[in-house]
């Protein structure tokens, strides 16, 4: 058991934990976008910065990737922390001015005027890697990845072409913290990642209920016959 303080309050944690989950558990307000309970930390969004004092040395660190240690003093709202957090938010907001979550956070932390020119070609994507991790770790198909470097870096399917491995399950849509990923069901066709996936039609009630690719994948993973899965949940 490790003991340290957050904003003067004594907290306990087990070895190997990071500061962010401990602080959230104890009720401290640290904003985060790329940390996810089911997927863990990645250190991409960098708005979860805190100040850690170890002995006589102070540092600004990302709390989601800083392991807890005995006797450290963490401050979640020191002036330096707020300054760094504000600059990070300003940069993120300049990248994705359309993202409501960022607008909300910017307002909360007092980012009034953004000094940088705003991007309008990035959509709402802040490159947090959650969709890529969800696709690889939760679904297990790895249909997504980063492409390009620097300014042109983006999340996409390999070679920016319609993916063969994507099963159109939509886990990336649910996981995305900003709502960037586009998915639409219309007349038996689901559009996601620039590809059209046919939806399975239930033989009993003739309603469209799930992408054929997803059902095939579930059938492969769980060994449930595809004929059973093709029938929708309400008729099964």
């Amino acid at each position, binding site marked *: 058991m490790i003991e340290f303080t957050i904003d003067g309050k004594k907290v306990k944690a087990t070895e190997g934990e990071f500061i962010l989950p401990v602080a959230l558990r104890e009720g401290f307000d640290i904003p985060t976008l790329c940390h996810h309970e089911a997927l863990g930390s990645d250190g991409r969004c960098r708005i979860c910065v805190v100040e850690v004092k170890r002995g006589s040395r102070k540092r600004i660190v990302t709390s989601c990737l800083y392991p807890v240690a005995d006797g450290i003093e963490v401050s979640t709202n020191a002036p330096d922390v707020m300054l760094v957090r504000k600059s990070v938010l300003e940069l993120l907001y300049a990248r994705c001015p359309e993202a409501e979550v960022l607008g909300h956070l910017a307002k909360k932390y007092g980012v009034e005027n953004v000094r940088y020119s705003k991007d309008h070609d990035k959509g709402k994507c802040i490159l947090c890697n959650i969709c890529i991790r969800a696709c690889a770790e939760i679904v297990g198909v790895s249909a997504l990845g980063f492409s390009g470097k620097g300014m042109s870096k983006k999340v996409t399917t390999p070679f920016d072409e319609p993916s063969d491995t994507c099963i159109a399950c939509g886990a990336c*849509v*649910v996981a995305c913290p900003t709502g960037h990923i586009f998915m639409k069901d219309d007349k038996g066709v689901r559009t996601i990642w620039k590809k059209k996936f046919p939806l399975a039609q239930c033989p009993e009630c003739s309603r469209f209920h799930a992408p054929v690719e*997803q059902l095939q994948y579930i059938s492969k993973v769980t060994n449930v016959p595809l004929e059973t899965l093709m029938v929708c949940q309400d008729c099964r």
Partner: protein
Amino acid sequence: MIMPNIELYAANVIPKEEYAVSGHRACQGCAEILAVRLALKALGRDTILTMATGCMEIVSTPFPTTDWKLPWIHVAFENAAAVASGVDIGLKILMKKGKVKKSDINIVAIGGDGGTSDIGLQSLSGAFERYHKFIYICVDNEAYMNTGVQRSSSTPFGAMTTTSPPGKLSMGQPTWKKNMVKIAVAHNIPYVATACPSYPFDLIEKVKKAKMADGPAYLHILSVCPTGWRTASDLSIRYGRLAVESGVFPLYEVENGTYRLSLNPEPLRPVTDYFKGQGRFRHLTDEYIDKIQKRTIKEWEDLKTLCGVK
């Protein structure tokens, strides 16, 4: 956005922390406690709940136990929204005086259909009008269930309850269901939505949107009640889906007056698919079912026009 059938994977990304914990005394198959549980997951730990008398209050806090891991205030039947507005103002003053740290605290009032559309309507209307920043969640199980299934103004046409019994002189509930969502929209509040725990991701998304709204938000959640609806307790989720797919309870949201359909279930199932197996509709003759079907289609077409869907 509605994503049918991705539960297998996406369920893993729902928050794992529980705020309405197990051990409560809700009936087997209760979709109402499920709706509250999912909503609280989306709200997180910085939440204050005020709750009107109703099923959820009865099952969650038989003295001296409690189901809630959040600050929870039980109020009388009629004033959940009034107390929520008091909490809002109180917090504002305490934050101004520096006694409470400035932070985003969600204030949530929860009421059943009776506590919302019958008894609590005037305090709710007042709180909307005063524009307090709070979320009102109406968990609608379409009658006063905890006192033994008495009709409310939210009971659908033709349904059997103990105070609208079918027989020689009556055919069940003689009036149509009150449209609470339209009443809330008429207050010009920033966010109004309908949801159903059979579509959990949609429900969570809508609660998150309500959290971000710049004023009062109203959520109307249809909660299947196996006890009062006389359905099998393992079919609650299915009946929620059938209600949506038959057009009886369409899922939509109204953001600043703009309607948007969350799910287009067309072609609609016949309402008989939804009524089948529900004891409360067992007595309905073809004549009444036809009447309900016609009204359902008309309301659905009206809603489609409002949402701009062809």
